[in-house]
């Protein structure tokens, strides 16, 4: 469609374009605008303004029509997203319903998406751990994927930089496998979490439980107050959007910050169709957008482009960006675009009871969720019949037992005078999966979505290594729980499809060699230097950490590099 009657080209030209406004896109926008670049942020969904667009945030449970339950008609029409733990009546408006944006599952894959300004940064679990060199060195040591082109020292200053601004609570635990950062005070472990920590310390070598590190303002600094955020109020209703800005999101933090520079243009309802490549200039010159309301195609232009559409959609956009120079997708000379996709294996959990420490309970709520067990398997050397390992969450809470056996006045009395039950403990596995060429995404040749963009086919599956690791997690946790005197141990290995972990990564991996990777050590496409990818798509391997903090650090680091290159006229 012609652009003549829309705007002049000048009005559609910026210094930089960021595709996506989620956790990494928000960071790219903040950094670019702070460095003085006129920046267009494209968001395929609607706008969600901090506080005013959080309709459920201050509702009591009784103010929800179904007390939090998702009506059956919605559940049945959206079985994929319905499997997500956070898809509840209070936050279901922030999730993509299955039939709104279809995709093709060549193998079962639960693709959980949040199409709105802020993306999934409104909905994330807010756990934030740095990668160590045990993680970055993984592929080279254990012989899979390709070597990461960076190590912790390359990212460390950028981790510090984003941690200070986002606000990360945690302790300096002094563990080599989980580097310390710039921390606000940690949320302390409770009585039983502490007890279990002691058990591991006394009975095991190299197994630790730490206070979960999370993006909550336990004690805000000036930089957070300047963002308009205040101390986390322990509501733990984060998925509704937080009116206090108690946790980090694009909406509460990076986007308003970018807005204040006067350099930000935010365009919601704008799905990125493809990146426009100029054969003469030998670089990307802009982004073709479809307005999701009018279905009009509009081209926007810029000197540099950041692709932060969330891992799988970033793959889709690059695959759909074809030209004479790049018939198989932008920067895809290696033929590896869309391949070596991986995720985190969350398909096992375990629970138990503890009969001790009954003189204690908890009061208030812990936004960090409890404890975190960093990876201990195969850390220093290969010691099992699977490669790599898993981290785990660990938390304890005091059960409330309400006897509901009676009727009438007795029942009423029992309901209003609940008894404290035993402590209940639980853990969930967060395991590394191995990127493989066969785990891939690709464009469908025929089917297109409502905006004329090819549908994505996803073929991602578990493998034998995952199965062995899962069995080991259950075995090790059972042993540790037994050692701690926990009883009624129940393992749940019913499993879930890949994707439901919401940690899909890769497809546009980083590497030293342009023949075997798409991005260099600066998150820059080897073959199209003014395009950068700093969301989950860039990940060469997955390790075990919650990935968002690393995407933030990559984004800030890549913008710094890109703007310097721009100044040197290298882009």
């Amino acid at each position, binding site marked *: 469609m012609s652009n003549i009657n829309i705007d002049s080209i000048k009005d559609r030209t910026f210094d930089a374009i960021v595709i996506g406004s989620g956790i990494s896109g928000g960071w790219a926008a903040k950094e670019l605008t702070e460095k003085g670049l006129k920046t267009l942020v494209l968001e395929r969904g609607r706008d969600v303004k901090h506080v005013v667009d959080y309709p459920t945030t201050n509702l*009591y449970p009784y103010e929800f029509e179904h*007390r939090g339950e998702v009506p059956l008609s919605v559940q049945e029409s959206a079985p994929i997203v319905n499997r997500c733990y956070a898809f509840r009546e209070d936050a279901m408006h922030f999730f993509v319903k299955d039939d709104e944006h279809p995709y093709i599952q060549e193998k079962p894959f639960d693709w959980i998406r949040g199409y709105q300004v802020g993306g999934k940064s409104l909905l994330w679990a807010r756990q934030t751990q740095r990668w160590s060199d045990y993680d970055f060195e993984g592929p080279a040591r254990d012989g899979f994927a390709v070597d990461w082109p960076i190590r912790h020292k390359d990212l460390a200053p950028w981790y510090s930089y984003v941690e200070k601004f986002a606000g990360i609570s945690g302790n300096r635990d002094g563990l080599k496998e989980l580097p310390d950062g710039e921390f606000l005070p940690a949320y302390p472990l409770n009585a039983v979490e502490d007890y279990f920590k002691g058990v591991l310390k006394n009975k095991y070598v190299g197994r630790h439980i730490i206070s979960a590190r999370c993006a909550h303002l336990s004690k805000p600094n000036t930089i957070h107050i300047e963002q308009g955020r205040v101390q986390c109020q322990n509501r733990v209703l984060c998925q509704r959007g937080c009116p206090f800005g108690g946790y980090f999101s694009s909406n509460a933090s990076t986007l308003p910050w970018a807005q204040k520079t006067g350099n930000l243009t935010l365009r919601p309802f704008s799905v990125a169709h493809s990146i426009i490549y100029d054969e003469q200039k030998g670089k990307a010159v802009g982004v073709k957008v479809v307005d999701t309301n009018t279905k009009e195609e509009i081209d926007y232009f810029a000197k540099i482009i950041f692709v932060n559409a969330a891992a799988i959609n970033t793959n889709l956009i690059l695959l759909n960006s074809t030209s004479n120079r790049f018939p198989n997708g932008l920067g895809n000379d290696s033929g590896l675009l869309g391949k070596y996709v991986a995720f985190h294996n969350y398909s096992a959990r375990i629970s138990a009871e503890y009969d001790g420490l009954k003189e204690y309970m908890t009061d208030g709520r812990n936004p960090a969720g409890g404890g975190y067990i960093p990876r201990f398997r195969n850390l220093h050397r290969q010691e099992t019949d699977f490669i790599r390992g898993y981290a785990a969450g660990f938390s304890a809470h005091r059960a409330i037992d309400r006897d509901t056996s009676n009727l009438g006045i007795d029942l009423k009395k029992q309901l*209003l005078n609940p008894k404290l039950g035993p402590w209940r403990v639980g853990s969930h596995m967060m395991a590394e999966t191995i990127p493989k060429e066969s785990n891939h995404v690709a464009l469908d040749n025929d089917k297109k979505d409502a905006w004329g963009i090819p549908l994505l086919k996803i073929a991602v599956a578990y493998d034998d290594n995952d199965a062995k690791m899962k069995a080991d997690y259950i075995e090790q946790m059972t042993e540790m729980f037994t050692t701690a005197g926990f009883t009624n141990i129940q393992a749940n290995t019913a499993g879930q499809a890949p994707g439901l972990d919401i940690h899909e990564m890769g497809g546009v991996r980083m590497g030293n060699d342009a023949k075997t990777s798409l991005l260099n050590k600066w998150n820059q496409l080897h073959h199209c230097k003014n395009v950068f990818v700093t969301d989950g798509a860039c990940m060469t391997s997955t390790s075990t950490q919650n990935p968002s903090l690393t995407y933030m650090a990559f984004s800030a680091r890549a913008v710094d590099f890109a703007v310097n290159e721009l100044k040197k006229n290298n882009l």
Partner: protein
Amino acid sequence: MKRRAAIRSLFIIAGGIAILPSCSEQAGKASIQLHNIDITDLQENLLAEITETILPKTKTPGAKDLKLHLFVLKMVDDCHNKADQDAFVKGLEGIDTQAKEMFSKEFKALSSEQRIRLLEQVASSAKESDRQRFYNITKRRTIQGYLNSQYVMKDLKQYELIPGRYNGYAKVKESTDKLS
């Protein structure tokens, strides 16, 4: 806020949530809009009496005061499958049949002791029946509606929207049964 108040007054507040009243004041129909189940005003009243038997008014509000029967209807209508809904409607009607079988009276005419005896018999019957399925759904949803009501959550301070604190080593105080 005035506009909000005006809009609110159009709704029936059931345990703290607003439910849209049925548009017509048609005789014989339930007082709230239902999409999947068909309930008469008489059945609605019967359900109200059953929920009141489960959680009666004492010094504090009971199920009818909190309109928990409307909450039960809303949840069955929106959150249960067809099999549950069918069993619920049949089982509800069956409660009156059972009242006649046991006491030769309608449920609403029974004393509170008789009502409890009847519901206990439904609950303990070895045979899984529509009545039992109805009763289990109704009891569960009545308890849920009660514990999640404005009265229990806010007035009795059983829920805090904004705790503003976390203590992982809170000392357990001796509990004293005060509320009923």
